[in-house]
């Protein structure tokens, strides 16, 4: 069955194929080695002039067999592998996996550990959003400056991660039933200091770009994703909220201790690239709010469930699907246990992979230059897409 035939069934609101004028079709493959496909992603693009008439994403250039490897080793051993899923936000991956396993075995997490999880999770969100916005502007052709500023901020956060977990990127911090190490008061002070500097960064970023006419011209009205299509296609995260759907798993599932914090969910109304860009910046500010509250309220206590087992961890047979609001959207882990030390089935539900479903719908009729932007605004990480 052809793609257009299914479209008629009504789930897709892909722009009607307009008459793009004459001119021979040019088939270009963008990627796997392309400066702005965020890794080894490839789009088989059919161009007429510079307009996209067809776009087929091609994945798998970074298919590292994460799920197969996960099935071959113990539950704990998969934890460092989850770091490498979405390698920009390893801590939220840890969290999602820990959450799924905790669901599978019905484990409780001490309160301090929950706070620590929120702190590192929101820090991760901040740096991911800063980075994704930076990369977006980089794709737009700014010669590095916004990205450099984003990275400058990210380095500060990475220093925090390093002094807490020991590694800049691959933190491997969470365990089933808590966190691996406790944070020292000095570390928390340091976090407070960094968090206090974050609004300044956001302001600087906004001054640098948000009212820039070129940026507005490039992003407004480009890559519009209607809310119905977004819902049907399972788009999650900032992208969904930019389309105006109020769905934030932190608010819906109240996992962890998110019901204790006062934060708002920014919503876009156009669903274009500019909205996605702005929603990320606004979410970054909301994250700062959460961080401030968490740093204020964090209690003392243990960070690991004393009953938790590190070695010989054997959940009872059963299955569980746990999900969190990762910076890029819904990150879920689906685990089936057969009672042995290894998961029988270990499945990752990556947000960027599912978000890419609508890539073609958003790109049709746009320019090559826009495709790059739209892809940037989806904010994919190939480690997660291909796993």
């Amino acid at each position: 069955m052809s793609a257009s035939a299914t479209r008629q069934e009504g789930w897709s609101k892909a722009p009607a194929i307009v008459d793009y004028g004459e001119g021979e079709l040019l088939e270009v493959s963008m990627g796997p080695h392309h400066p702005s496909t965020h890794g080894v992603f490839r789009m088989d693009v059919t161009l007429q002039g510079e307009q996209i008439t067809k776009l087929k994403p091609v994945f798998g250039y970074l298919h590292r067999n994460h799920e197969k490897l996960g099935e071959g080793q113990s539950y704990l051993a998969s934890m460092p592998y989850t770091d490498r899923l979405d390698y920009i936000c390893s801590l939220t991956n840890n969290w999602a996996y820990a959450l799924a396993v905790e669901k599978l075995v019905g484990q409780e997490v001490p309160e301090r550990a929950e706070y620590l999880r929120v702190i590192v999770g929101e820090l991760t969100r901040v740096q991911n959003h800063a980075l994704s916005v930076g990369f977006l502007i980089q794709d737009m052709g700014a010669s590095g400056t916004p990205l450099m500023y984003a990275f400058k901020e990210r380095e500060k956060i990475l220093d925090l991660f390093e002094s807490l977990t020991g590694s800049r990127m691959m933190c491997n911090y969470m365990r089933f039933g808590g966190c691996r190490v406790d944070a020292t008061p000095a570390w928390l002070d340091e976090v407070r200091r960094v968090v206090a500097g974050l609004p300044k960064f956001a302001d600087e970023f906004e001054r640098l770009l948000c009212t820039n006419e070129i940026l507005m011209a490039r992003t407004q009205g480009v890559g519009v994703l209607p809310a119905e299509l977004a819902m049907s296609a399972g788009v999650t995260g900032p992208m969904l909220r930019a389309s105006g759907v109020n769905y934030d798993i932190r608010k819906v599932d109240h996992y962890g201790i998110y019901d204790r914090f006062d934060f708002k969910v920014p919503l876009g109304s156009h669903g274009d690239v500019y909205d996605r860009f702005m929603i990320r910046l606004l979410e970054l500010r909301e994250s700062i709010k959460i961080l401030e509250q968490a740093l204020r309220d964090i209690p003392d206590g243990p960070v690991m469930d004393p009953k938790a087992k590190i070695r010989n961890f054997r959940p009872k047979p059963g299955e569980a699907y746990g999900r969190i609001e990762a910076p890029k959207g819904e990150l879920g882990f689906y685990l089936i246990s057969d009672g042995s030390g290894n998961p029988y089935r270990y499945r990752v539900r990556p947000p960027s992979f599912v978000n890419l479903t609508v890539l073609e719908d958003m790109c049709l009729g746009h320019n090559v230059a826009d495709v790059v932007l739209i892809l940037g605004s989806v904010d994919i990480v190939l480690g997660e897409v291909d796993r």
Partner: protein
Amino acid sequence: MAVDEQLKIEMGRQGVFVTTLEELYNWGRRSSIWPMNFGLACCAIEMIATTMARYDLARFGAEVFRPSPRQADMMIISGTVTKKMAPQVVRLYNQMAEPRYVIAMGACAISGGPFKQGYNVLKGIDRYIPVDVHIPGCPPRPEALLEAFIALQKKIDAQPLTGEARPRHLDAEAPGEFPVPEPGEHDLEPAANTSVWTVPVVIR
């Protein structure tokens, strides 16, 4: 090294002509290594971090990330090379103009790293192309990449222009390109390029 350079320039200014052709050549190509804009996986983020303000690869004159292989000198294999990607990597390497250097950054690029038992993961890019410098780490810190970059510069400095020990690209007999593996029904074919992949048997 920088001190040496300055000394040399100082001497040159005083009329002492010390720079032979070989030194000039090596100095030129080691001071101007333009990397290819090529990121694969996790390490790519650290590679980008290396070019950013904190570490600033630009100090070495290497911030000119060229997106086209024709203009690039160095390929940083930054991340896991999967079997689906390997033909492309080899082809890109082939399309670079000589002299070209390869840095295998991170465990995955060297050996497949933590993912090496995966069915779609190539166990090290040096099965197909010669690698100049390996950086272990998962991912290596940006400083580690800088250190490897300096190591590469040292390696270039030591390369003679003529004679037996001259690097591959100065040798008319040495191959100019490396065959691109074909994706087969179960695996890449061939599984390794035996002219660059001589492996010691370590099985216990």
